[in-house]
């Protein structure tokens, strides 16, 4: 459903063309990446672009979804593996998104929190 489609889209875009991610965020969006906060589409997109070459193992991701209090938002919790660079070892990561609806079928990322799991 919506969450799975979003996750597939998000990670494929992140891995291939991170500058396109800016469209998923709005000025009120916040990303906390390994403890550091970034606000707004430009800052967030820049952070993702600065990661360099990264590959997420999309088919193996576990995705959990819960609706938020107002029916226009949902919470998505992803765990899975990623590799940095061509020869990196797989690393375990966890990421939380809150998607907010702006209209039928249209969502933006309001909250985004990423952690590597050691």
């Amino acid at each position, binding site marked *: 459903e919506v969450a799975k489609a979003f996750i597939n889209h998000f990670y494929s875009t992140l891995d291939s063309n991170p500058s396109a991610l800016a469209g998923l965020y709005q000025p009120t969006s916040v990303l906390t990446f390994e403890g550091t906060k970034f606000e707004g589409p430009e800052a967030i997109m820049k952070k993702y672009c600065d990661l360099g070459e990264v590959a997420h193992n999309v088919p193996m991701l*576990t995705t959990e979804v*819960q609706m*938020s209090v107002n029916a226009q938002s949902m919470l998505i919790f992803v*765990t899975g593996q990623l590799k940095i660079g061509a020869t990196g070892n797989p690393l*375990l990561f966890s990421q939380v998104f809150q998607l907010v609806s702006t209209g039928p079928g249209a969502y933006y990322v309001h909250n985004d*929190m990423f952690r590597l*799991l050691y």
Partner: protein
Amino acid sequence: KGDSMATRLHLAASIMLSLALHVVSTSSLSSCEGGHVRVFSCLGGQRRDKSCLKDLSALVGEQPTLRLRGGSDQQASNFEEIGKAFVSHYYSIFDSNRAGLQGLYQDMSMLTFEGEKIQGAAAIGQKLTSLPFQTVKHEVVTVDSQPAAGGGVLVFACGNLKVDGSENPMKFSQVFCLMPLQGVQGYFCYNDVFRLNYG
């Protein structure tokens, strides 16, 4: 003893838990058992006395809610403190007397526990108390908090846990979405997603 227990529960229920950021003045409560005074001064100060929290979760049968100081206009900017305070509170109760966790949820709360979906405080309480271990110890390594859409606080905690005194820690991640209570200050847990992370 039964009578004083009822009084304690009543007091606790009507006054609510207070994870104050500053020392809470509780002289009006100290007429009751020593347990009350110890609990509030413990939570108000810096001490993290485990036995204090154990008393607390035993005391609060009716409505153990998480209540933090600060006016409503401060809530948004306090979300970091809210997140940290909640996480500390949640895992302390989990590790000492997890039946006390039920009061942090309401009827519309949702828990997804390792993929299993559970709704409502009673069902969630039942799930948590029936987990197949006697004791658990959580060690929180990271806590990230953000203001959520709709006035809540999104909290993301990662760490390790050990079950029944095992030497091998297991990695876990947990997401909470806290929402403000109606009519009183404080938060309850609306969303809760828990995952063990296998490397």
